[in-house]
Every structure is written in structure tokens, then in C-alpha cells.
């Protein structure tokens, strides 16, 4: 079952056709070449997308959306838990106290707040134990960032076994919260855990888990959405007292776990921390070639500055990272005690034995192969090579594909025609093998009617 490659994928990223202007910005930044322009709109190829969110960042008209759950859904439950990553508090100005933020969350309808990274002490010990095992698979790769797990599945299938078989902090904490509340007598169906996400990849990971059968998380709220709600409430009211059971303050390690170096600096052996998806691809190429030896652990994050740079964050990523690092170094030992009714600190609690930390094997789902059958793949490859010799190799994107290489592959997979190449079109027109009208029609099939008609309809400039 694990080795079977999936065919259907649930993505958090969607392109709104009504808003998309087909500008191809997203197509040009996609690290897995998962986007094409057709009929004047961007089209997302489901099997290639890893939910990294690079397209979301560059869209000039906000046509790329990240679907989250309707906020009112929290009222489907009597126990409404906001599962917060540390970067959420990092979004707000320094003068805004943690208790003010939590009071606003209470006002908004949550009954409990729990921080995702409270499970990192337990996780750290488990990673250490894995690293101390004398297995030949090295380096082990962190399971923290779901975009990276998907990237490895589609682009580096040889490395899926290097992914550490431990759940990420988000899943461990969600299971813990659930167990704690059940222990206190709350019926399971009344527990609604809502994760406040800094990125699209985490949503996809919850809705379509890899290496797990289901998620204890009831819903996902986008961080930018909740940030606005909380900030507005804090601005309107001046909270002095906090009725919300405030959990114990987090340690330095917990607060900074989701930042770059957050894992690697606490682990034994030779560890490397790398952020930003192109940097990650560069290092994975080397790992795949066995060019780097004696490396024990790789902390890989898809976003620059890790979760502080998540696509749904509002504050500047460098300032968020600085704030989280400074905040904890300032408070240090004087951390506030947990309210007796709060869910408590994971490390001291006994609720963890019942949580299975292990992740199932993660299967590959290569997008690179030209055909399942190698003989067929070889024929297609020779065809790709022949087409490549005809293409101009300027990667202009006018054909609606991100590169000449991508167009050549699309042609071989019967997903495009060579006439979409503007250079080839011109020559065909010159030879009289393609009429001007046909050429314009081909352009319009890629870019829609609006763009080509602009010049025709407006007289002079």
C-alpha cells in the first residue's frame, strides 16, 4: 500500500479562474514546473504541485487562494482549541502582550490555546534516539516541512527513505491535546482542534496526510485571517485581565524550533539547516549523488527564514525571527506558570505515552518519468531531444510553458504543439505553411483573446 503511488492529491492552493489574468508570473516561479498558461488562465497540474506557495507570493491580482475552513465551524464543537505556531505571536508588535493576544482569541470563541512547539522536547529526544541508531540511511531528513516531503516524493524519489519516520510537532501536539481533553472526560466528538497555519503546505498535509492515516485536527484557519481578527479586537478593546487559561510560556528551543536552525542546533552529529526551496533543491541534488558524506541530519524548510517566511504571515520574516529569538532570551527563566485549567506543558505531562510518534513509510510519486515503461520512455526521450534541437532555448514562456524543455515534454505527452513556439511560428509563416490568422489563433489559445486584441482595438499610443 505504501509503495503504491497515489494518483489524487488534495491541494490547498487554487487558481481562481475569474480573477486570473494569465500573466504567467506564477508559471515562471514554480519550482516543480507545475503551472501552464492555457486560454489566458494559469492551470495547475495536480500531480506536480507541492503546495510550496511560491505562486501565491507573486500573483499580482490575488487570483491564487489558499482555502481554509470557515471560521464559524469552530462552533461545531464545545471545546474549541486554537493550535498556535510560535510565529503567530511573532506577527504582532512588541508591545502587544501574549495575554492580550490570547484574550482576543478567547473573545473570538476559542476555549483553549495550545502552542504547537510544546511537543518539541519530546520530539528532540526521539530524533536523537533515531540518530543514535546505527542505520546506514544517512542523512536523515526532517519531517517538519510538508512542502519538502512532497518535493522529495515528486522530484527526489530515491530519498524518500531518508525522511525521518517521526511525526512533525504539529501532529504530536494535536494528538496530545486531544488525549488530554479526553482524559479530563471530554467526549471525543466535542473536541475541535483548529490549526492556525502560516502556509499552504500545512493545510495540504492535514487534509491529505502523507505517512499517516488521518489527522486529529478538525480544521485549519489561515494565519493572515486570524491576525486581522485578533489585531482588530486588541485595538478596539483594551484588555487588562485575561480570563483565558494561559499556558506555560515556551522555552527558547520551543519558540525557535520553526525558525531556520531551530532543529539542527539542538541535535547531535553533523547537522545542516537549509531554508528556501531552491536552496533545498540544490542540496538534495548533491545528497542524491552521494556527494556529501558523513552528514547526519538535514533540516530543510521550503520558505526563506522557515515558518517566519510562510506565505500566510503578515510581518517581515526577518523581524519575526528576530523577535522570537530576542523574546525568549529576555524572558529566560522567569517564564510564567501555567494556569491550572490550561492544557499544560507537554514535556511535564504524562499524556505522551499513548501518542504514537512514528510516521509510516512515505512512498515516492515521481513526476519526472516520461513513461512507466522504460522502452517507451526511451522513445519519448529521443523525441524530446529532437524537439529540443528545434526550439530556441530562450525560455521566453510565450508558448505557455515555463521553459523550452517543458514545452518539448508537453509536446511528447500530447499536451501541446510545436506551433505554440513563437520562433517556429514565424518560420512557418515565412515558408507559407501557416497563415497569419492561424498564428494569431494559436496565440489566443494560449493567452486568451484579451491580450492579443489590445493592440488591434486601441488606435495609436
Amino acid at each position: 500500500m505504501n509503495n503504491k503511488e497515489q494518483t489524487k492529491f488534495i491541494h490547498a492552493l487554487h487558481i481562481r479562474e475569474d480573477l486570473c489574468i494569465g500573466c504567467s508570473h506564477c508559471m515562471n516561479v514554480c519550482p516543480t514546473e507545475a503551472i501552464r498558461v492555457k486560454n489566458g488562465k494559469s492551470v495547475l497540474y495536480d500531480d506536480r504541485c507541492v503546495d510550496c506557495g511560491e505562486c501565491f507570493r507573486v500573483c499580482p491580482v490575488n487570483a491564487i487562494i489558499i482555502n481554509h475552513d470557515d471560521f464559524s465551524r469552530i462552533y461545531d464543537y464545545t471545546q474549541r482549541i486554537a493550535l498556535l505556531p510560535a510565529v503567530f505571536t511573532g506577527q504582532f508588535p512588541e508591545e502587544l502582550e501574549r495575554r492580550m493576544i490570547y484574550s482576543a482569541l478567547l473573545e473570538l470563541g476559542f476555549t483553549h490555546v495550545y502552542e504547537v512547539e510544546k511537543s518539541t522536547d519530546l520530539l528532540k529526544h526521539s530524533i536523537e534516539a533515531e540518530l543514535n541508531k546505527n542505520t546506514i540511511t544517512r542523512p536523515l531528513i526532517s519531517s517538519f516541512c510538508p512542502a519538502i516531503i512532497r518535493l522529495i516524493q515528486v522530484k527526489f524519489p530515491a530519498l524518500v527513505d531518508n525522511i525521518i519516520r517521526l511525526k512533525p510537532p504539529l501532529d504530536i501536539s494535536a494528538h496530545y491535546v486531544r488525549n488530554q481533553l479526553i482524559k479530563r472526560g471530554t467526549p471525543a466528538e466535542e473536541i475541535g482542534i483548529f490549526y492556525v497555519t502560516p502556509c499552504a503546505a500545512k493545510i495540504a498535509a492535514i487534509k491529505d496526510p502523507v505517512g499517516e492515516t488521518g489527522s486529529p485536527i478538525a480544521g485549519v484557519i489561515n494565519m493572515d485571517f486570524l491576525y486581522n481578527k485578533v489585531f482588530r479586537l486588541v485595538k478596539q478593546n483594551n484588555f487588562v485581565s485575561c480570563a483565558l487559561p494561559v499556558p506555560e510560556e515556551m522555552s527558547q528551543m520551543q519558540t525557535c524550533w520553526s525558525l531556520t536552525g531551530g532543529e539542527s542546533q539542538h541535535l547531535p552529529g553533523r547537522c545542516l539547516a537549509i531554508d528556501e526551496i531552491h536552496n533545498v533543491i540544490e542540496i538534495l541534488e548533491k545528497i542524491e549523488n552521494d556527494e556529501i558524506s558523513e552528514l547526519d541530519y538535514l533540516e530543510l524548510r521550503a520558505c526563506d527564514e522557515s515558518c517566519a517566511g510562510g506565505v500566510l504571515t503578515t510581518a517581515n520574516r526577518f523581524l519575526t525571527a528576530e523577535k522570537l529569538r530576542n523574546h525568549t532570551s529576555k524572558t529566560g527563566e522567569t517564564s510564567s506558570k501555567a494556569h491550572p485549567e490550561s492544557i499544560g506543558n507537554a514535556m511535564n505531562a504524562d499524556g505522551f505515552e499513548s501518542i504514537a510518534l512514528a510516521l509510516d513509510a512515505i512512498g515516492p510519486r515521481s513526476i519526472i518519468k516520461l513513461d512507466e515503461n522504460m522502452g517507451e520512455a526511451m522513445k519519448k526521450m529521443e523525441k524530446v531531444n529532437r524537439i529540443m534541437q528545434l526550439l530556441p532555448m530562450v525560455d521566453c514562456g510565450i508558448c505557455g510553458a515555463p521553459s523550452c524543455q517543458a514545452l518539448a515534454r508537453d509536446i511528447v505527452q500530447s499536451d501541446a504543439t510545436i506551433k505554440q513556439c513563437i520562433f517556429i511560428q514565424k518560420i512557418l509563416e515565412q515558408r507559407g505553411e501557416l497563415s497569419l490568422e492561424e498564428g494569431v489563433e494559436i496565440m489566443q489559445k494560449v493567452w486568451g483573446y484579451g491580450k492579443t486584441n489590445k493592440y488591434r482595438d486601441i488606435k495609436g499610443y
Partner: protein
Amino acid sequence: MHLQYQVEGGNFTKAGLASSDLKRVLKLLNVDPKIIKRIVVALYEAEVNIVAHAWKGAIYIEIETEKINVLLVDEGPGIPDIEMAMQQGFSTASAVVREMGFGAGMGLPNIKNNSDELKIHSEVGVGTIVEFTINLNNEQ
């Protein structure tokens, strides 16, 4: 299917280009990732050998559905004692090469471990021919 690469002796900045390109091709051909890894590791070692020891060389690769055959021909000092060179940890690499992280004496044994067939022919003062074959269907 045939692939061909030129290798420049002493240019470590370009060592590994052939193995990276071959990896890209094998992924496109849907070769088992574990077998790709063995091929890439073997070719990388052989490629670095040319860069580290020879003046120049060429790589000829023939891919069939059942197997891949890699032939590396270099013009260089040759290997005086092939048996000794096959031993783990034996290296004639200069100090400069070792400082760059190459020349740990793993080259030839590593190629042997990762291939199904290995032939080495060398003439001192003329050059070396390394040829290895890796089966693509059955996992070793």
C-alpha cells in the same frame, strides 16, 4: 540510447556534471531510484578519477532497457598496479587534491561495489580505460 561527455583533467569545479546529467536522464526513463543511485555513485567516482589524475578524458554511455554500459577513456599517467588501486583506502592523489575533499582512496572499490561488471585496462604513461555495466532490471 547513447550519451557522451568530455572531461577536463584538473577542473574540479566541473567534476560531477556527467553524473548529474545522467541522473536526470535516468529519472526521465523511470529507472528504479535505487539503481540510479548506484549508477550515479559509480560514474561520479570514475569521473572524479579522471579529473584528479588524467589530463583529459571522455565518457561514452550506452543505455538499453536491460542494462547500462559506461566506458571512460582517459589520457593520463595510467595505473601501474591495478590490484593495489582496487584496495580500499589506497590513493595516489596529491595533497592538493586531498585538501579539496577528493582522493580518499575509495574510487575504484566504490565503482566495483556499485556495478555488476567492471573492467579496467591501463597503460602507464598513456591512459586508462574503465568500463562498467549495471543491470537495470534486477536489484542486486
